[in-house]
């Protein structure tokens, strides 16, 4: 054992490496490199398959409400594969559980990219989670499509050319809600109740463009704290007549219950993330049956106004809802048919459309360019905002009022707007039916 002889020498060498690297700061990007266009690549694509991946909270505190999205997406891919796939390829969908923990998100996404060699990441869920892989996916040139979050940061085509949003962003949604409230509830006292993160911040920015002087109280909630009584008490004592809720489904239901608890009956206007009546009804249904309470889900939800951009589970006349219901009945009949399932299926369908449009001769950059240049017409009632200069998802939304009996009335036809000062305008309404998209025609 003569190792110790070399110790000093090695120590010097190690120190040397450390000093060498100390030349530049940890927060400063090294200069030079990049810029040149390498040939387009297509990892994860073979003659008969395309492998794609996603990160979802399947367990842990955020699983409630979200763990079924990937179930629905998988059902849709199965349906597509059973009908011949896309351009002769089956879609293989790999879902990794990140438990809504950003550290795990980074690990599982690197696993998907490095080990599973996925072609693209589709529908990665959550702002705190997905924001941590944005840099990585764009550095590696992995298409990062249809992110399941309405944050604004997905829409930075120059900085993040591979990333595309999916949901209508929180700012646009806030503008649409604000415009609607200004027209329909003029002069009323407005209270805001929002999740204390970028959801709340961005939506307020949109709302404030229209109803800033009507707002008399702003209350935030923290997803880790399920007691929202203090906030609703504050809203009630400010004499609020309309409460705008930027809440996830569980907190929307909690809000409705807590309002009932303290005898507070304002008009509720919910954002798209928390206005799925089927999910809310599921959360509230037991209160009708139980011994003590005489409150029913119908009672709580009647008059409740929500935002949407996809067809709703409750609108069974809609051709797309019919189509999704068929897929549901065939592949996942035991799951409750909710807007959450429709979200997952529609997202999968949209990705398949993009894949189809990119053609048999696939490449990562080609897929991204296809999304920028093709107007995908699919399930939604509003168009995507995709172009060379915009990677924002859906560009608008519509508003519905729940009638309490499971049906809903549209109170604002689909409208679109932008992220800046632009007006809220009626959407272009030419929609296609599922059998007109030509997705599975060959």
């Amino acid at each position: 054992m003569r190792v110790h002889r070399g110790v000093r020498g090695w120590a010097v060498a190690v120190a040397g490496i450390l000093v060498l690297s100390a030349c530049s700061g940890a927060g400063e990007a090294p200069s030079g490199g990049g810029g040149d266009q390498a040939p387009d690549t297509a990892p994860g694509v073979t003659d008969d398959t395309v492998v794609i991946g996603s990160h979802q909270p399947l367990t842990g505190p955020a699983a409630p409400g979200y763990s079924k999205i990937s179930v629905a997406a998988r059902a849709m891919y199965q349906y597509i594969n059973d009908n011949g796939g896309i351009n002769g390829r089956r879609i293989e969908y790999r879902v990794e559980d990140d438990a809504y923990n950003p550290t795990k998100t980074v690990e599982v996404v690197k696993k998907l990219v490095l080990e599973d060699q996925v072609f693209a990441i589709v529908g990665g869920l959550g702002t705190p989670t997905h924001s941590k892989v944005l840099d990585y996916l764009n550095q590696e040139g992995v298409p990062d499509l249809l992110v399941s979050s309405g944050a604004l940061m997905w829409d930075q085509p120059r900085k993040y050319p591979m990333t595309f949003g999916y949901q209508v962003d929180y700012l646009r949604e806030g503008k649409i809600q604000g415009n609607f409230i200004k027209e329909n509830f003029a002069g009323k006292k407005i209270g805001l109740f929002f999740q204390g993160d970028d959801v709340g911040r961005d939506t307020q920015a949109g709302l404030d463009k229209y109803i800033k002087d009507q707002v008399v109280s702003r209350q935030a909630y923290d997803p880790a704290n399920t007691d929202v009584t203090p906030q609703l008490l504050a809203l009630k004592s400010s004499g609020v007549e309309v409460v705008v809720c930027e809440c996830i489904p569980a907190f929307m239901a909690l809000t409705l219950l807590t309002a009932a608890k303290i005898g507070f009956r304002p008009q509720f206007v919910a954002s798209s993330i928390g206005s799925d009546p089927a999910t809310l009804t599921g959360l509230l249904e037991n209160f009708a049956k139980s011994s003590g309470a005489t409150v029913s889900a119908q009672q709580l939800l009647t008059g409740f106004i929500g935002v949407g951009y996809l067809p709703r589970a409750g609108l069974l006349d809609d051709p797309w809802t019919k189509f999704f219901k068929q897929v549901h009945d065939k592949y996942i009949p035991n799951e409750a048919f909710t807007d959450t399932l429709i979200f997952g299926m529609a997202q999968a369908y949209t990705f398949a459309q993009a894949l189809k449009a990119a053609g048999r001769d696939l490449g990562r950059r080609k897929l991204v360019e296809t999304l920028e240049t093709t107007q995908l017409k699919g399930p939604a009632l509003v168009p995507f905002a995709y172009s060379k200069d915009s990677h924002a998802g859906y560009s608008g939304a519509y508003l519905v009022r729940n009638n309490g009996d499971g049906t809903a009335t549209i109170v604002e036809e689909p409208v679109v707007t932008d992220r800046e000062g632009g007006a809220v305008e009626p959407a272009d309404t030419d929609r296609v039916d599922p059998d007109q998209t030509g997705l599975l025609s060959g």
Partner: protein
Amino acid sequence: MSAETSETTAPAPPAGRPPTRSAIRRRGLPPVLRHLGWALVAFLAVVGLTLLTDPFTNLRIATIGYYLIAIAGLALLTGFNGQVSLGHGAFMFIGAYTVALLVLHVPGLPFWVDLLLATVAGAVAGLLAGAAAARLHGPYLAGATLALAVGLPAVTQRFPDLLGGSNGLSFTVHSEPAALIGVVPTTRWQAWVIWATVLLAMVILVNLSRGRLGRSLRAVRDDEVAASLAGIHVGRTKILAFIVSSACAGLAGGLQAFLLGTAAPGSFTVALSLSLLAALVLGGLGSLWGAFWAAIAFVYFQAWAEDAADAVNLPVNVANNLPLALYGTVLIVVILVFPGGIHGVFSRLRAAVRSSRSSSSDRSEGVS
């Protein structure tokens, strides 16, 4: 008493089998240098391993590295000193945010200064926590540290502009020398940096735990009254254990931020703190080797469980929850069947091999 106290033997250095004390004296080489030598061997082994494996495995090797130092620090506090911390994730949180804030706001600092400051931040937090904890016993300490793990990440909500609220911060730590960019893949380089740092820290830890501090720690754990009669300052020893331990956790958090480029409250949940402790017990409490096995188990067990759950065609609800169920079951079984953890199993095997070699008759089939 329990199995803990029976293992008062000095912990082994992080690599290789330790020669006996007399051998050291004979050779006349200070233990620090000898441990550095072993650390170097271990480092070369890690480098070799990273060269043989793909980038994703490199990432996992790097991950094992920072968990190793976090768990080793906890081993010093809980295993050697008997203070149960259910909140070590909080110190990792501090380390990670230290690196994050430095990278974002003082971009000119080289990464190793950031890491050093993360360690210092962890140590300072440990001083505060240790001073508060020194008077607390068993479950009171457990409860207080648990509250720390729950409460501390909430500061991000209070200062959303600085700490990013619930979304946390994301950034890239540039560390690779320009000459190596494009030659050595980033994850490989990161694994090297992490293991070099961790092994250095381990050398310090091993020397501390074998020296006077280590003896004081064990004496205080075994009997506070006797220790103080022997002239050991009990309170100071406990605080010192906390400082060293949370400095390690701070460094681990800093390394995690360095590797993954994130610092977010959702990463430092109670679940993390509890799993660090669980992994430590799984690995084996009495020795720093236990921390090594623990770190490997921490990273690989979950990966294997998830692959296993994916491989079998199960209903979604079952498949999603299977890895957790397996993890919990393993914890219970290990404690009930192998209270010494993985390290205990290995030492028993070694003892068995040795005794069968020395004499076949004198086989003490051994509960240690």
